[in-house]
């Protein structure tokens, strides 16, 4: 049978993505080399002044520092709670397993705005969490407009990706190794840390990369919980584009954000590969 050429079949989507993805992204990089003046708008200067401004201004450096802090905290917490949760889910009875996966992964299909609103209500000054703290005799916590508040809410938004990645990796793990460890007297914690976790590590690592990149570029949750004062890279880009109208500067922040995230992920990958190469027999 004569086959239709795959290039013909892929043609429409390639044309669409070239026009609506590749071209706009390339133009954004070019835009970052231009400059902005209040009277003239975007001026085609073709220099690095936006990058120089971002790198030399302590205001922007603090924003990038905060973004990194946020992304690292969310990634670590997601790994710490998401990996054990995936293992526990994999050991439930089939019926409870399906139900639990639905509950843990289902929120991925609910708008981030709705999920963040829930945390705004919980964390408010007289919100449920503070009422619970008061009932327990604990002091009031100001979580709204604070970095810990953003970390908690963003962890809630992103931890399903970690559970999903680890759960997928656990499908490849031979349950006999766990049983062997347990029959030799290992406690559940020991089984998890010494037998399961090393085998599930590829899942934890790919989950970390997904969570880290999404946390570093998150917009809605930092904007709603962090507010105007607690700016991160994504909300700074938003302000440059829609408030100050300095598009070239905003584009430079965006390029720096993408480059830093890619660099950190690649470096992390390299380090991990070396560790694994050293561990392999």
């Amino acid at each position, binding site marked *: *049978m*004569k*086959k*239709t050429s*795959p290039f*013909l*079949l892929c043609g*429409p*989507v390639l044309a*669409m*993505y070239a026009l*609506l*993805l590749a071209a*706009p*992204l390339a133009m*954004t990089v070019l*835009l970052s080399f231009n400059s902005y003046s209040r009277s003239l708008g975007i001026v085609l200067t073709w220099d690095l002044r936006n990058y120089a401004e971002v790198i030399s201004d302590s205001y922007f450096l603090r924003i990038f520092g905060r973004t990194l802090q946020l992304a690292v905290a969310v990634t670590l917490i997601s790994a710490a709670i998401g990996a054990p949760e995936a293992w*526990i889910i994999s*050991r439930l009875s089939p019926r409870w397993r*399906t139900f*639990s*996966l*639905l*509950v843990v*992964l*289902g929120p991925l*299909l*609910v*708008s*981030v*705005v*709705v999920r963040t*609103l*829930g945390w*705004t*209500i*919980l964390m408010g000054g007289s919100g*449920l969490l503070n009422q619970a703290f008061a009932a327990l005799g604990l002091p009031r916590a100001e979580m709204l407009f604070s970095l810990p508040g953003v970390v908690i809410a963003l962890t*809630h938004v992103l931890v*399903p990706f970690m559970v999903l990645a680890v*759960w*997928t990796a656990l499908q490849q793990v031979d*349950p006999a190794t*766990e*049983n062997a460890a347990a029959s030799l007297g290992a406690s*559940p*914690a020991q089984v998890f840390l010494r037998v399961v976790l090393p085998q599930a590590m590829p899942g934890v690592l790919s989950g970390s990369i997904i969570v880290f*990149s999404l946390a*570093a*570029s998150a*917009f*809605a949750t930092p904007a*709603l919980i962090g507010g105007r004062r607690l700016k991160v890279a*994504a909300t700074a*880009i*938003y302000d440059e*584009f829609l408030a100050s109208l300095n*598009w070239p500067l905003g584009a430079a922040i*965006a390029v720096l954000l*993408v480059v830093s995230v890619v660099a950190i992920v690649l470096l992390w990958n390299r380090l991990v590969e070396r560790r694994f190469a050293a561990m392999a027999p």
Partner: protein
Amino acid sequence: MRRNGIVGLAFHALFVAFMLAPLAVVALVAFTPDGYLSLPVHGPSLRWFRAIADYPEFVDSFWISIRLGLASASLSTIVLLPAAVAIGRSRFLGRDGVLAFVMSPLMVPAVVMGIALLRFLSILGIQGTFGGLVLCHTVVVGPYVLRMLLAAATGIDGNVERAAVSLGAGRFTTFRRVTLPMLLGGLAGGWVLAFIASFDELTVSVFVASPQTTPLPLRLFSHIAETTDPLVASVSAVILALSAALLILLDRLYGVDRLFSGGRR
């Protein structure tokens, strides 16, 4: 035996509570009879659901989001169906490149896609139009559609098609009567997933929507940024209910366990 101990089950209960708490609190607060965000301690009331009707901009945004989801999910499915058949059923030079290219919107931060498309659409002079918004969402939801279509396309037994051809069916007839019905599960699953992704999308819409074409999540976002009355909770409850219904539909069409494991069992 592989069983969870008490500690494991307690951890699991806490984790599930953590995942559900913010959603449950939104759904509960939506039924408050009071004028401020609070749990409905004075009995449930539909006051704030009725209030939605007094805010025509929310109703308009709801329909914009529905139309946007329908248009972008359909357009994306139509454009990606031939590509998924090619990628899933044959090996050719540049196959991995095409695959990576279509999946790349998942890798590019949404805020970067947003500014890039804002600049691009404003140069073309279609920034803020509904059509422009549809094009942006079509690109954003592409990876979800492709993943589902690929899972379906790679599972097809080529012998069935060869049997159709040997019985005298033409290429188009074979595709329409034999291949397409076998792809239907992935097609429907991918379409629903794309609709949900578009219906939930905020960050790209922030940059490319105009006041006349504001989708529901963006309307909600702007409203929350200004004031938090129980109206945002009742609107969110409607979104939650719709998402839950679509999730159940997806489960029926495709099976959630298969959906979340990317089509692999």
